């Protein structure tokens, strides 16, 4: 019978290494895809996954006091990803141009969803957005990823990142605003 996460964590803290192995098996893909979204390449994502579980193993005595293992693990993974980003790429460069195109462009794009070119346009837009996402500062990037890609709520993100919910809202708002601006500008350039 498949054990629940809290039960696996409890057994792990009591010395059951089989429980730890089960936890790794359950979370490895999720952490990998999150790290890949953050860092954009396989090697870095691989490093994040390995290092995250090694840190969880080394911090097993702290797990006794942890109420949400998922948040705990994701926090470790995101913090390490942010550290890697800062070491390898520095702070992200975001276009300072605050000009925005008329909203008619996006409305037109929305109408075009029904046309035969809609799938291709969606694909192009998605690539543009993810390229813009990689340019965001680490905290804004991880907030947007956790919220809009992974589906975590703002309160969950606040718990993961150990910051106030107001900070999460602020980072998310700024990230979305920048993404929309960059997206509009690139679409304008293509026209």
């Amino acid at each position: 019978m498949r054990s629940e996460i809290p039960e696996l964590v409890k057994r792990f803290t009591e010395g059951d290494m089989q429980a730890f192995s089960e936890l790794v098996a359950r979370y490895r893909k999720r952490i990998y895809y999150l790290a890949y979204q953050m860092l954009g390449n396989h090697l870095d994502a691989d490093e994040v996954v390995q290092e995250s579980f090694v840190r969880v193993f080394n911090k097993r005595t702290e797990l006794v006091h942890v109420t949400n293992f998922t948040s705990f693990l994701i926090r470790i993974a995101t913090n390490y990803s942010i550290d890697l980003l800062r070491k390898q790429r520095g702070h992200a460069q975001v276009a300072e141009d605050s000009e925005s195109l008329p909203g008619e462009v996006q409305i037109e794009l929305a109408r075009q969803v029904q046309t035969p070119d809609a799938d291709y346009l969606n694909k192009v837009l998605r690539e543009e957005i993810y390229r813009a996402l990689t340019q965001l500062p680490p905290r804004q990037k991880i907030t947007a990823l956790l919220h809009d890609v992974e589906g975590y709520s703002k309160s969950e993100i606040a718990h993961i990142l150990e910051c106030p919910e107001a900070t999460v809202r602020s980072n998310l708002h700024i990230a979305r605003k920048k993404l929309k601006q960059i997206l509009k500008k690139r679409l304008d350039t293509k026209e």
Partner: protein
Amino acid sequence: MTCRHAQSLIEDLVDNELSEAKAAELRALLAEDPDCLREYQLSGRLKHLLAQGATSGTPDPGDEYFDELQRLIMARTVESAPFARQAVAPADRSRAERASVRGSFIRSIITVAASLCVFVTAVFLGSTDPSRTAEREQTAAGSPSPSIVHVVNADAALDLTSGDRDRIVAGTMLLGPPGLMGRFTDIAGRPAPR
């Protein structure tokens, strides 16, 4: 509600985080204000595209990779930590303990043997010292060093009986065999005669 105020609530509406009353009020505003409506549609489109990217933007490395990743993680954690011994089965544990005791015993034997070798080598090297050859020739096996006998017999102030002298001499024989400890000093602590 004005459009400017609505801008800050649009994202909450897109995220379904507004109360029913607030959501209804905002939707009414959007229906009347085209700029606000466009902003809402843009926010919704962005969220939709980001969510799509979660499933289609990341390449799948395959199950073999994840299995190998798991093996690496276990090698770096469980298999390299002393904590891992707690998970060993009882039968395997007794076998491991026996092997550990056997190993300790063998190491102890080797250590004692090495110490004996060093001791014997030191004795042998000392016994081959030419400066002691003459004294050794004078001294039969088991006999005290002449210098010790001389000191014991010559020191009348010690007021020793013959039994005492014999005991002292026998003791120095144990303490200072020719070629090793007797090499450096005699019974009185003076340097051994060359």
